[in-house]
């Protein structure tokens, strides 16, 4: 879902703007890596699209730059076969093989082989499911908003961003965010080495009275 949608997810990345950043060249680089529909055998396809219109794949600087931000859409298509269909087709194929085999038995390896074959066959016939995300790169602050949390899409986005802009976007996890808070360097160093602090109050000493057996025995 896009940033303008009523509800969206946002993952932040750190990506410093390279020293050479020429807008016309960037637009050409983006257009070269624009989304292309899946060919006959691919499982997934991804690429840039216009943030204002996902059908626009020839992008000019006017389509990409909004003041000090670069805003572009990311389309990620993936073929997915419903698990139930795989299960049914496997059963059908296994039954056919058993019928053709005089023993009527199938080993573990054979069943595994059938599963791979069935999945591959169905995958080619499956329609790709498209997903659209927004990428907004704040060029002044050096951070990126990306609206997708799906791991596969995020990894594809990271690779495409690196190939297009020559910068690897790094997820802004708490540990890395420490550098961007304006804290004194000593505090940051100390925080890098802290260990988790248990919040549970340590169990109290048992209040059962102990009999002074030893003392009595010695007495």
């Amino acid at each position, binding site marked *: 879902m896009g940033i303008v949608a009523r509800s*969206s*997810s946002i*993952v932040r990345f750190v990506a410093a703007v390279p020293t050479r950043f020429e807008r016309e060249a960037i637009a050409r680089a983006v257009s070269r890596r624009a989304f292309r529909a899946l060919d006959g055998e691919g499982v997934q396809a991804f690429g840039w699209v216009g943030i204002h219109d996902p059908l626009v794949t020839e992008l000019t600087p006017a389509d990409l730059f909004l003041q000090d931000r670069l805003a572009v859409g990311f389309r990620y298509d993936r073929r997915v076969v419903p698990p139930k269909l795989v299960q049914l087709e496997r059963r059908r194929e296994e039954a056919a093989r058993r019928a053709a085999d005089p023993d009527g038995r199938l080993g573990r390896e054979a069943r595994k082989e059938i599963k791979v074959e069935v999945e591959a066959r169905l995958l080619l016939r499956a329609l790709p499911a498209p997903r659209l995300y927004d990428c907004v790169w704040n060029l002044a602050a050096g951070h990126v908003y990306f609206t997708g949390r799906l791991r596969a899409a995020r*990894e594809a986005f990271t690779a495409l961003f690196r190939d297009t802009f020559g910068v690897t976007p790094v*997820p802004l996890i708490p*540990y890395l965010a420490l550098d961007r*808070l304006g804290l004194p360097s000593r505090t940051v160093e100390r925080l890098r080495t*802290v260990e*988790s602090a248990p919040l549970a109050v340590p169990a109290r000493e048992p209040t059962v009275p102990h009999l002074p057996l030893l003392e009595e025995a010695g007495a």
Partner: protein
Amino acid sequence: MSEDFLAVVEAKRFLGREFLTWLVHRIEEGGGRVEHDAQVTEIQLGDRIVLAGGADDRARLTLVDAGDVRTEMGAGLRRGKLIDRARLVLVRGERRWELVLDGGTLAYESVRCPVLGERDAAAASDPRAAFENDLFLRLADVDDALGVIDALFAEFCTLRGSAAWQERALPALRAWVDDLR
């Protein structure tokens, strides 16, 4: 994503979870007001909290309720879990944001910003201009909300890296956890 990076993410996930736990404590103890960029924002706890443990405790505890979940939250915290995700509501005057903060990764889900205002006349007749107008406004809203959370994270980190953490903040947190029954 390199193996080293993923190892750091996993090993230091607790820092964000401690932050979120501290934040919920701050809100619960009446400290939900935050001043950021000369504006005061009130933060409230929403109706969804997820607690998670460390590497040796994979069980997650999800609390979804508009009512009082402090007892269940306390039970989870006393078992060594920390708050991993929480729905937060940010209110500034008539403007209201809702989001689910993933403390472990500082990612945001279900971000709902204030309703966009009226478009200007030029934007109303041009779909492209209307979209860019909405995008600008929405980005400003997102920057606003995330800026408040960042300010709170900075406050937590300053405290966490100081002697006051061991002396005052941690004992107060532990007492709060112990009282959540």
